[in-house]
């Protein structure tokens, strides 16, 4: 066992060296790897869950559900079903989001360690990684890392002599955005159509193949070894000691759009948008002004230049009227046509609807076509009201899953913040009315 090293400030990316192969097992362990797992295996599973709960780790996939609470919903003890599963959601298809890719390509063992700990905490002997099909490099590196772990008996039977058995399988998706929704992911993993399931039952009671299952985002799981290794207080302190955020830990933030240096950076939870855009992304390109941004991927509400000083954490972004989502910003500048951007987004969402429920399946294509008319300047004045109605009818509770409500978020906020763009696009070709 290596000596306890000084706690890192950027735990998730500490071992990632851009443009280099990820660490192999020996290097990984030399840099503090598997300390979390070793510590976890000495604890009771429920204590691991308790630790994660008190660290305040929230799901990094977009919804921000407290991870420890999720684990705590899984039935434990002698009466619990024998077979349970932990599934990593690596179907990172959110437009503008590329953080899980970075983590898997850069440090696959960190993720595997988190996965084993998660499996141990909930008593799952099998884990699946559901990976976006296009992440070819990540798949390759993950496979190599899994094989190495197997060879070193860090996966398989009786891990590190603890009596805990855990196998990990990689499943590459056939490529549908809806698989990012955890129950659609489970259906897909079972070989069924990727259609979301109705809840209850929640996956914690009846998930994969009807068995208790936890589905966690890749980034979420990457946090786990560090929490177990360095403790809940250290973890909370990462943000509370810097930004003062109540949400613990660091977060992979990023920016795309016409900023000078698009990219992805690990920063304390609660870093302001301004810091991300100006300090890390280098500000807007010459001659462009920031007009708005989607804070956490395509399915979050626009915020505007007024919100640049909002800290990026779950609570503050929600207060500002949007969602933290994946935490990777899509920046809108003052020269990019908003209508084209919206049309492009809705084309994506319409195409990625699974086709199960009516508002999403038939409402998104209609929305897309109306926006295409706005983009082409042939919309009618009544179309604005029609779009407003769609944002209501495709909103939360009206659809089977959050796909269409997510798709409505950029649109409803664009209608709110940029109404003139819509009226300006009405009837430019004289077809208005």
């Amino acid at each position, binding site marked *: 066992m290596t000596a306890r090293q000084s706690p890192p400030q950027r735990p998730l990316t500490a071992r990632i060296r851009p443009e280099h192969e990820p660490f192999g097992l020996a290097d990984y362990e030399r840099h503090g790897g598997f300390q979390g797992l070793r510590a976890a295996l000495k604890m009771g599973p429920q204590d691991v869950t308790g630790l994660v709960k008190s660290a305040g780790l929230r799901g990094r996939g977009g919804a921000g559900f407290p991870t420890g609470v999720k684990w705590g919903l899984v039935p434990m003890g002698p009466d619990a079903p024998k077979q349970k599963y932990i599934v990593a959601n690596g179907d990172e298809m959110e437009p503008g989001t590329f953080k899980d890719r970075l983590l898997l390509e850069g440090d696959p063992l960190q993720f595997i360690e988190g996965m084993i700990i998660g499996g141990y905490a909930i008593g799952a002997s099998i884990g699946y990684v559901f990976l976006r099909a296009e992440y070819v490099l990540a798949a390759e590196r993950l496979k190599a890392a899994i094989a190495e772990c197997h060879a070193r008996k860090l996966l398989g039977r009786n891990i590190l002599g603890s009596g805990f058995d855990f196998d990990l399988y990689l499943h590459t998706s056939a490529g*549908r955005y809806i698989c990012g929704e955890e129950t659609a992911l489970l259906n897909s993993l079972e070989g069924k*159509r990727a259609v979301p*399931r*109705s809840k*209850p*039952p929640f996956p914690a*009671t*009846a998930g994969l*193949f*009807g068995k208790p299952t936890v589905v966690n985002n890749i980034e979420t799981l990457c946090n786990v070894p560090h929490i177990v290794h360095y403790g809940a207080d250290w973890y909370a302190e990462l943000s509370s000691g810097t930004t003062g955020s109540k949400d613990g830990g660091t977060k992979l933030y990023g920016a795309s759009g016409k900023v000078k240096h698009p990219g992805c950076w690990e920063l304390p939870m609660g870093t302001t948008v301004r810091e991300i855009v100006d300090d890390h992304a280098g500000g807007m390109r010459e001659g462009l002004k920031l007009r708005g941004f989607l804070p956490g991927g395509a399915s979050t509400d626009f915020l505007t230049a007024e919100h640049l000083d909002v800290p990026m954490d779950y609570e503050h972004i929600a207060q500002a009227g949007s969602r933290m989502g994946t935490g990777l910003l899509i920046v809108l500048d003052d020269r990019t046509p908003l209508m084209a951007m919206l049309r492009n987004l809705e084309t994506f969402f*319409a*195409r*990625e*609807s*699974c*086709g*199960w*429920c*009516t*508002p999403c*399946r*038939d*409402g*998104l*294509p*209609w929305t897309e*076509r109306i926006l295409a008319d706005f983009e082409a300047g042939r919309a009618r004045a*009544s179309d604005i009201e*029609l779009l407003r*109605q769609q944002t209501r*009818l495709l909103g939360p*509770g*009206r*659809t*089977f899953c959050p796909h269409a409500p997510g798709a409505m978020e950029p649109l409803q906020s664009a209608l709110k913040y940029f109404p003139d763009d819509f009226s300006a696009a009405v009837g430019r070709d004289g077809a208005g009315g």
Partner: protein
Amino acid sequence: MARIWIDGREYEVDPRRNLLEVALEQGIDLPYFCWHPAMGSVGACRQCAVTQFRDENDTQGRVVMACMTPCADNSRFAVEHADAVEMREAVIELLMTNHPHDCPVCEEGGQCHLQDMTVMTGHNYRRYRYTKRTHRNQDLGPFIGHEMNRCIACYRCVRFYREYAGGTDLNVFGAHNHVYFGREADGTLESPFSGNLVEVCPTGVFTDKPYGESYTRKWDLQQAPSVCHHCAVGCNILPGERYGRIKRVENRYHGALNGYFLCDRGRYGYQYVNDEARPREATGRSAPGASEHALSADKAAQGLAAWIDAGRVIGIGSPRASLEANYALRELLGASNFYRGTREDAALDTLALSILAAGPARIASVRDIEQADAVLVLGEDLLQTSARIALAVRQSVRQRGFALADAAHVPRWQDHSVRLMAQTQNSPLYVLSAAPTGLDELARRCHRGRPEDLAQLAQAIVHQLDHAQPRAPGIDDDTLHLAHEIAEVLVAAERPLIIGGSSTGSAALLQAAANICIALHRRQRSPSIALLPAECNSYGSALLGGDDLDAALARIEAGEVDTLVVLENNLYRRLPAPRLDAALTRIQHLVVIDALATPLGAHAHLQLPAAAFAEADGTLVNFEGRAQRYFQVFVPQDAQRPASWRWLQRTAAVLGRDLGNTLDELTAACAASDPALAGIVAAAPGHDFRIAGQRIPRQPHRYSGRTAMNAARDIHEPQPPQDVDSPLAFSMEGARVGLPPAEIPIFWAPRWNSGQSLSKFQDEINGPLRGGDPGVRLIEPGQGGAYFDRPPRSEVRPLQTVWLYELFGSEELSARGAAIAERMPQPYVVLHPDTAAELGLADGDRHQWAAEGQQWEAQLRVDPGLPVGIAGIPRGMPGMPTLGVGAVIGVAGAGA
């Protein structure tokens, strides 16, 4: 019970139900698509939106889907809240973005759930101004038309076809608004329940193809409640007629029997009624083979009367003819001269009835079968003989999943959640049969053998349940273990069910079913039993009694018979042709009363054309011993085809005897003849039943063309035919509400033009029709009789036959329709590969086969599922000979 509020009104409801069911039961018109009463809720279409309030102070509320919302105590809902109203209209508007406006040329028009729901939500103005998506349609075979552009993607079709009925060749492909419901490639839909897609689909994607080829709007169909004649289940059906042709058959809901679904034999088996080759008028023939001459009805009756008067006459009834027809023949000729229409089946039917009557098992309805938590099938290939029962057994295995869902507090109507929890865990089903069956995939274990071997296994089960009963010596250890397992499962079950029948021709198997029930009863269990006879009125025929066909032949062969009267029975399907041919030469007069032109009719000296099921009334007794009345749908044009019993009434009148003049008189006399039949009078209200002085119209209130449809022949409006046999009228005038459940000729309600209007005829979704499910159970099981003796052992004789069945082909009437004929296989013989190899025969080869003095050509099918040494032959198929039970066959030579 829970107290809930809907639009301010308070209701006491079952908290286990969902809001949509409850609202419909309360008469609230709440639109829906994806929910189906038999398939539960999946929350896909989002049509049944209502607003739910947190408490009495919440005025804003939130929109929820009624089908996915439990009726928890103190819930508050509004159907009429603005948000919900807007949502429901918007969902229709969205569905309409791709739905073509082809209602005028769509078969569904006028009976379309989508039309009804569109009107109900108020959507009437199209704002969508873009192109609609289009699909390529598929040829799905002879039963089902396909028009995918009309699809609103409610997913009901695949849920029914795959999840409910176990089909695999219909699926949903693609995603977003391109989802496609069809097959991987063009081709015939394989499921024997494919026809239900027509009714399950809320619009015109899956349509009834034969109906579409000779189409009439629902409102132009003349209909009467009827009962399927194509097997013994007795499913209730609604045939619709126009211009003297049956246009289609739809499901007629029966809470204890068919529920919402029919099999394809039942739905498409009607086509023989429209056969142009059916006899139209009475004909005489001076000698066999001589040309026919037409006879007036009077002349024909007088001729028959004269032959009867001359004496030396016997009659043969039929298990496919009504109780009344069989009874009339028996009365006319005397019980000692009346013979049942079957040979082997007669003894089996009598045995089965005695088992049912003795008890102690309760007689299972189809609904009971669905709810059984352990099922043992003894010898029957249910999917081929009684397909609706197979569909019910398929539901029964879900009991395990329901139990898991109950434990997790997941409501049973939450269909996909229940299936998720169940996964592949089925409640136990054991199938013992001669050859693989369509239910094997659901079975915990299957066992193959000759009927004699299955009876031995059953005896081992009996011994295991009751050690006082003898063992079955000589069975191997594996079989013995299976017997132990089955016995344990049956004892552990709450609602064990034994299903047997007559299809194997084995009395020992029926007795084994009885013995297992007796043994379970002695173990303080309450088993149910279902014994399936061969035909629609097998049990009615057996209740009337009469000796079997062998006895009839013996009298003919002894020269005691001059006149043979055969009622609705093609004896060539019952007796080996050589023996029957010889017997026919011994009689002077053959009288054939039948709806069909049969090989027997070709020998008749007097042929009396009879009504087919849709042209007459009568009573049938189904596998539960339930007497059910079916009613005349229409009066045939240009043909004299009275009910067969009416020919006999008329003949009796010539002889100065009284068989009555109406159905009621005949039914009453039949009921009075035997206490066991006393209940049949109550199967439906009699002909003098009126509602506020009015009859029940067979024609819908929008029936059109009444004065014009005959104008090409006669410009005068014809007098509507008078119905002296039932309270139904050949008219569009009369009572339409408060109908007795047995006499509902159409399911229609204001705002509900489709079959979904059914909920207006029920007090409870999935419950009985308002007023009780039609029919009267004639058999009240007793406390249980003595065990039957242990079945005898028998050695396998080389190429001993076992009977196999074909849903499309083994039943006489349905096999005559063009659509069913397209689905029929060619004649075949099945052998185990080892047996075929021993004989030097190869799979797929055609051979001449011989048995019992007959020779026929059939293809060899090799199937490792069949036991070694025996031969499977499809019974009753066109091109196959009539052979006795366990006949031994041989290869007579190569085929052509």
